[in-house]
């Protein structure tokens, strides 16, 4: 399943699921970079979003960051318990730390995102 996971340059991941849905979260790298998380705001279920549009915000002791939708579509579910257990993002960012489920407008949009190897190379080449 994880082989199908794709990444946005803005550090969100998306994984196709059954029935034309996809799960979205943020990468382990992004979670680690933010350090201690203190607050998260999730989008409303049913909201339509465009690729690159903010679907939520996350605050750490150090910074506030937007969470961007990697694809266009409709938000069909949110991980509503996540804001109360933000430590899950660090422990299991690609599993229980999922953020939203989306019904993408186009599967091709997912295919156009970065595969894991390319994403890993991207974060590995961040300027030092």
């Amino acid at each position, binding site marked *: 399943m994880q082989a199908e996971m794709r990444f946005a340059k*803005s550090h969100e991941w998306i994984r196709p699921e059954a029935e034309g849905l996809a799960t979205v979260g943020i990468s382990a790298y992004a979670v680690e*970079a*933010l*350090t*201690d*998380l*203190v*607050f998260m*705001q999730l989008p409303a279920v049913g909201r339509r979003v465009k690729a690159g549009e903010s679907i939520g*915000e996350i*605050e*750490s*002791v*150090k*910074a*506030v*960051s*937007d969470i*961007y939708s990697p694809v266009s579509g409709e938000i069909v579910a949110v991980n509503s318990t996540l*804001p*109360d257990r*933000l*430590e899950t993002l660090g422990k299991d960012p690609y599993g229980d730390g999922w953020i939203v489920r989306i019904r993408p407008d186009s599967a091709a949009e997912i295919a156009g995102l970065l595969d894991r190897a390319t994403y890993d190379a991207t974060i590995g080449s*961040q*300027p*030092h």
Partner: protein
Amino acid sequence: MNDSLRDGLRVWWDGAADGPTNMAIDELLAGEAVRTGGVLVRIYAWDAPAVSLGAFQSITEARSHEGLVGLPIVRRPSGGGAIVHGSDLTFAVAVPREHRLATLPQRLYDTVHGALVAVLREWGVPAMLSEPAGTEAEDALPLSEKPGTGPLLCFDRRATGDVVIGDSEANPPRDFKVMGSAQRRLPGAVLQHGSLLLASNQAVPASARHRGLAELCREMGIAPPEPMGLVRDWLRRVGGGVGGGVVEEAGGAFVSAKDAAVVEAARRFREEAWTARR
């Protein structure tokens, strides 16, 4: 580092404005960092004592705080705790996302705060970067121990990398926070807001207990640094950390408070929907 990025630090000494205007200009500052590929610092003031609230702090808590009654409140796009402005030096740093200082939040903190620590030491002031322990207020636990909450005021909080003055080796530690910062990581740039507490603000009950640089130095028998000299030394040191020199620019370098873009951007920060978003 991206070759298209400019080295060095552009410093803009701006004037005083109200909270929404200051927040609007800072947002435009971030846009200017994206446009120019350079690191920008804006030093500015407030036209009256005011409170800037962190992006997700409770407006109810701020408005019901007895020590803040009567003060205008503006919500920042950046995180962190509330700051009472009036006796502090307020600054905003904008860094393009491709810049090496923007990759990790702590990197920019350490560059900006570490520069102040180095300069304060040159002035004979025992400054250091904070570890998340030791407080000057009973409720000032490290935020990592209080996820989702924390003291309302920035200077009651303590995070790794805050600039503190005093004796952290003492038991219990006797050090006091004089600079804190918070970031907003925008799509094209990182915007970092910061505050250096120059002196205690006795006019505002909520912040009267926070010793500023002037009081702390006097208590330690040290001549307080001359603020403008200190700030210029600090900016030169930050410029060195950025990888170049410092270019100082007078107010209105790329935008003024009366520009239509500022007025329009400030509109959002005046709206109750923004101020009371949480």
